[in-house]
Each structure stands twice: as C-alpha cells, then as structure tokens.
C-alpha cells in the first residue's frame, strides 16, 4: 500500500485523486483554504490543514518515515519549489511529483529535487498539436489512455513461478489468446528500459519483467490471473 500526500486541492489534484485507485493507496490531501477543505471532505477524501512551510509539520505527516510519494500541486511555482526543497531535505528517497507553470520553473524544480515534473500547459499544448496533426490517433489515445471507454493501458509484472517464465515474447500471441495488444516489455536482463513490442527483438521472459498491454479491463484481469495462477 502506497502512502501519498497531495499538497493543494484543485482541478489537478481532484483529477489525480479520482484516477488513483484508493483501494491500494492511502491518500491525504493538504489544503489551507477552509472552503476547499470542505469540498474535498464532501467527496470523501482524507484532508489535513497544515502549513507546508514548516518542517515540523511536514515530518508530522510522516514525510521521512512512511510516505512514499508527494504531489506538489500548489498553484504558485515558488511554493512548489519550496515544498520540493523541504521534502527532499527530509527524505532522500521520497518520490516527488510537481507541477510547473513555466519551463524555467521546471528546471528549478528539478534542481530542488523533484523526480517528475508535469507542465499542464505544455501537455495541453502538445495534445492540441497532436489533435491537429493526427486527429484519429489522438482520439484513440483519448479513448484508451484517458479511459473514456473500457480500453486501458496496463502494466503486468511477471511473478516468480509464472507460466510465462522462460518463454519468449514472440510466442505470447496475446492478441489471439486474450484480445490484448502487447505495447512493450521491460526486460530486466537488459535494464529498466521499455522496449516497444514492434517485432525488433525476441525477449526471453523472466520473473520481474514487465509487460505493457492495451485492452479491455476484463481481458487485462483475465491475463493477470493467468500470469499469476500458474
């Protein structure tokens, strides 16, 4: 179970929380505005009102001990930078995901120790550009990745003792057996890099390797069962 803290309650955090599977994650939202706290509470989220500028308060949340991930979704870039810097100072290994309002802030956030920067404006711009250039593909991705239909991209880790161990990726034929399309493989023998499954290389599958597949959730679950049950 991952412990996650989200700083700031706004459109972005709302979207992120609703996408995170709350069964498997423990999520706390930090907000100071009473109205926003109330609206988050109404949605059934766990909220706390603390001052992120205070290291003691951050530690009291569990940063440095139990917290795995923090989202810095505060509206001002300088606040996010300050928060990232404070959290990184407390915990060297925490996973920090921050939003950046401009390219310069992104660099500063990286310097402050953030693991992943998300620039909403840049992503929006890129998506609109995609929509103009390749409307069909973008619509498909919208329906799959962005989950408007029952098509999802999922990653499946091959457990030890799975029937897939010591088989080859070319023999998987997921499209016939499970109605899934194999998008990529992380072959641990070759490092943590994702290899797209475009028939360039035949990967030997071992425990710990990750398969990225695209398909309806029922089929994904069926495949997960098959992989783990063996």
């Amino acid at each position, binding site marked *: 179970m991952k412990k996650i803290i989200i700083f700031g309650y706004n*459109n*972005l*955090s*709302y*979207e*992120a929380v609703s*996408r*995170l*599977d709350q069964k498997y*994650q423990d999520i706390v939202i930090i907000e100071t505005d009473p109205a926003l706290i109330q609206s988050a509470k109404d949605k059934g989220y766990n909220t706390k009102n603390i001052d992120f500028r205070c290291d003691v308060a951050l530690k009291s949340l569990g940063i440095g001990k139990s917290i795995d*991930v923090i989202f810095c*979704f505060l509206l001002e870039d300088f606040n996010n930078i300050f928060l990232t810097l404070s959290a990184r100072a407390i915990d060297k290994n925490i996973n920090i*995901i921050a*939003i950046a*309002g401009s390219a310069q802030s992104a660099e500063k956030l990286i310097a402050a120790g953030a693991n*992943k920067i*998300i*620039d*909403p404006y*840049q*992503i*929006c*711009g*890129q*998506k*609109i*550009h995609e*929509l*103009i*250039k*390749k*409307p*069909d*593909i973008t619509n*498909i*991705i919208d*329906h799959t*990745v*962005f*989950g408007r239909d029952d*098509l999802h*991209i*999922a*990653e499946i880790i091959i457990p030890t003792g799975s029937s897939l161990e010591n088989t080859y990726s070319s023999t998987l034929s997921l*499209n016939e057996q499970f*109605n899934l*399309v*194999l*998008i*990529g493989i992380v072959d641990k023998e070759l490092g943590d890099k*994702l290899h*797209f*499954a*475009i*028939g*360039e290389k035949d990967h030997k599958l071992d425990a710990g390797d*990750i398969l*990225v597949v*695209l398909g*309806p959730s029922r089929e994904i679950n069926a495949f997960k069962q098959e992989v783990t049950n063996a």
Partner: protein
Amino acid sequence: MLAKPLVYFAYLLKTSPYYQKSKRFFYNLLENPQSKMKSYFDISMICLVMLSVFFLVYSVEHKLNEIGEFFEQFVVVVFIVEYLLRAWLFSDSHLIIISEYERAEYLNIPFSVIKTLKKILEKKLEYIFSLIAIIDLLAILPSYRPLRIMRILLIFRLFKLFRYSNSIKVFADVLSNKRFELLTLAIFMGFLVFISTIAIYLFENPSSGGNVRHLYDAFYWSIVTISTVGYGDITPLTFGGRLVTIALILSGLGVLSFFTSIIVSAFNEKMYTLRENRTYAELSRLDNFIIICGFGRVGQEIAANLTKDQQAFIVIDTDENNIKLAKKNNYIYIQDDASQNTILTNAGINSGASSVLCVTGNDVINVYITLTSRFLNPDINIIARANRADNVNKLYQAGANNVIQPFEVSGLLAAEHVGQPVAFEAILGILQEQKQILMETLIVYPNSLLENKLIGDIDFKHRKLTLVGVISANKIHLKRRNRYKVKNQHFYFNPENHFELLAQDMVIVLGRKYSIEHFQDQIEKSKLRPVK
C-alpha cells in the same frame, strides 16, 4: 434590327466558359492584388519600363541602332496591349447589354441600342479619363515619331512605375488622412507667400535699388526662402527687403516643422493598419493555416510545435506582452480581440484557415470565441481549452469539435506515474514520439494493396509493426466485436484475422518511423498501379 444579334452576342459571352476563363486570367495577371501572377507581371513591367527609359535617354544624344528601334517598338506594343486589356477589364459590357435588355423586357418598353451603347461608352470613358489610364496613354506617346517633341512625356513612363508598386498608393492614403491639416497649412502658406511676394517686390524692385525685376521673381524668391532652401541667386539689398526676409525665414521654419510633424504623425497613425494590411496580405497567400486565439503558455507551446512542422498559423491576442513574444519569434500576429467577427474574418476563418484553436486562459472568452467561429464557419475544425471541468459541455455546445482540459490530462498523467510508471513511460513515449516510435494511421485507398485484404494476410510482424486496430465508418463492420465509437466512426480494437479491409478504412499500427513510412510508400505506389 441591330438589337437582336447584340443581345444574342452578349448572352453568348456570358455563357461562354472560354471567354470567362480568359477574362479571369487577365484579371489575375493585371489587377488581382492577391494573385502571384500579378506580382511577376509587375516586376517584369518595371524592368521593361526601366530599359525603355534607358534607351530613350540614350537616344537623346545618340542614334539608336536597329535592335534599339526594335525594342522600342516592342515596348510600345506591350504598352498598347496592356492599355487595351485594362480597358477591357474595367467593365463588363455584355452585362450592361443584358441588364438593359432585361430591364426593357420587364418594363415592356423597346430595347434601345443607342442608349445601351452610350452607357457602355460612358463606362469606358470613365476608364480613359482616370488618372492612371491617362498616365498609361501618355507613356505610349513619346515613341510616336512625328511627335518627337513629346519626349518630355518620357517622364510619364517613369510615373507608370508607380502603377506596379504599392508604395505610392500607401503614401497617397497617408496624406489623404491628413487632408484637413494639410489644407490649413496650404492656406496659411499661400497667404504667407502672397504677402511676402508683394512685400519683396515693393521693397526690392529695380527702381528701389533691388534686383527683383518682376512679380514672378518675387514669387520664386518667396518659395526658395520659405522652404529654407535659399539659393541666394536673388538676395535682398534694402533694409525693408531684409526685414521681410527675416520674417519669412522665421515663419518658413514654422511651416516646415509643422509640415514634417503632420507627415510623421500621419505615418505613425497609419503604421498599425499598414502592418495589419501586410499581415492580411501574407495570410491571403497562405492556405490551410491555423488560427491560434490566445498566446499564453498553451498557445506558445502549440506555436512552437507547429513551427517545427512548418505548419502556417496566425496568432491573435490582446495582451501586449504575449504579442511582444509573438513578434520576437517572427510569427504572423494580430493584436486584437479574437471574439470579434471582423477580426476572425480578417484572420481568414473563411478563406484558407483549417482550424481555430481557442486556448486563452479564460473559459468565458474561449466559449465566446468558439461560438463566434462556429457562427462564421460551420465547417471549420475548432479545438478549445477548458480550464474547469464544468465548462467542457458548454464548449461542445458552443460548437467545439474537441475540448482539452490541461488539468485533467496532467492529473491523469500524475496518477498514472505513481500507479503504473512503466505504462506511463509507454504513453508518454507514444504521445511525444520519443525514440522515433509512433502510432500512425495507414489509409486504405481504393485500388491499393490493402483494399479487400484480410487482416490475417498482412504480415505486420515481418514489417516490424504492431497492429492496434482499425478505424472505419463502414457499416459492414458493425457486427464485429471490440467496437468503440469514436466521433462518427468506429474503432475496432485488435481485429480478427478474417477482418476484411475496405476502402477508406484506417489501420492503426505502432512502429518505428521508417517501417511506417516504408509501408505507407508501398501503399501509395500500389494505388497508382493500373487495375488488372
């Protein structure tokens, strides 16, 4: 008696595609400011005029050889043809005949040939007496041998140059804007010159010991002095004359600076419209461009990406700082409110634009621009940005084809990054086309190698491609499984081996850029092959 064939002939011209086509061609060549042909024509005419003037100047002191004579003849023929063509283009005589005839028919009065011809003649005379046509005509005359005296009209050949460039029109426009000020100044100057002419003549006439012999000299001296040129060929000698000179020089300075300031301010005021006109002229030459309304962070990101693709676009924004940025990047821009009909029309929403992007930071404005754009052009592709989820439906209602929520996409990516980091990398990789791996559509053209082929018979593996699905609007496929509705067509995920591809279907594959391009080339080539 003459009426019948005349009317018949007029109708014949009206319905003749050949006549219409040739008239359009010459219109594009000579008059249409937006045609490329006109600019080439203008440039070659400028060269021709310059050369002919050179020959004429040369012939003042030398005798032209045969080539020179021939060239002069050629130039005159070109000028005459041009003059006649312009006269022809100026009005549509056959339409005048037809409208007169139809009017007569309607009112049940006899059709008068004389009256009609008079009308046609009036129209053509209007052309003949227009300033620019007179200049054209005068430019032809200098080479008429018996009228060698008319060499002076050579000047008009140079005036003709103005016809082929826009600058004189712009200058005239600027001046006409300041008519009132210039008139005031001219009247003031007229009085000044008049008074000083009389005064200097009184003080400086030869009988008073000066050297202003008559009123013309006095007038000439006044102009030379008031303009602060002061040649000094006529100088005042008497005390009174010098007083007049001092007064005239001082007021001359005033007049001159007043005149300069009028011209400068006129240009300043006109600068904005001049620039805008240039923008529109630039736009009118483009085709299939994109209108970006709002040049904030999102707009800038889109512009940068479009520049990479060499896709033409225009930026509209009201904000000074945003426009400065657009200027710095050499983008075509309009600094104005994109929700106004005129601005969008001028930006080419109905003439060449393929998409409108409403990406300001304000949802209210985005809705307004979307609505305006949809009203102006029912078929254009509109993509809008919604900052709040509640406004998505409003944007669709206003007529947007697609709505993007920056925060939704980012929130989702953030969640995905935590939950499924590898899948996240895959999505990002495909979205941003990292490592040259991309998802692409292969269109099934009629008669191409993909048409009527079964999915199982296409060797995707051998081509190093992964099949994802097929997009089709064809109703035949509707009974198949894994169907997802996307807009007005369906996406068939992971189609079975016996799925038959039909013309206009789109196959979606994942693969490296080379493999996809190679396959696309083969498909393109195969559709050109004759059907066996």
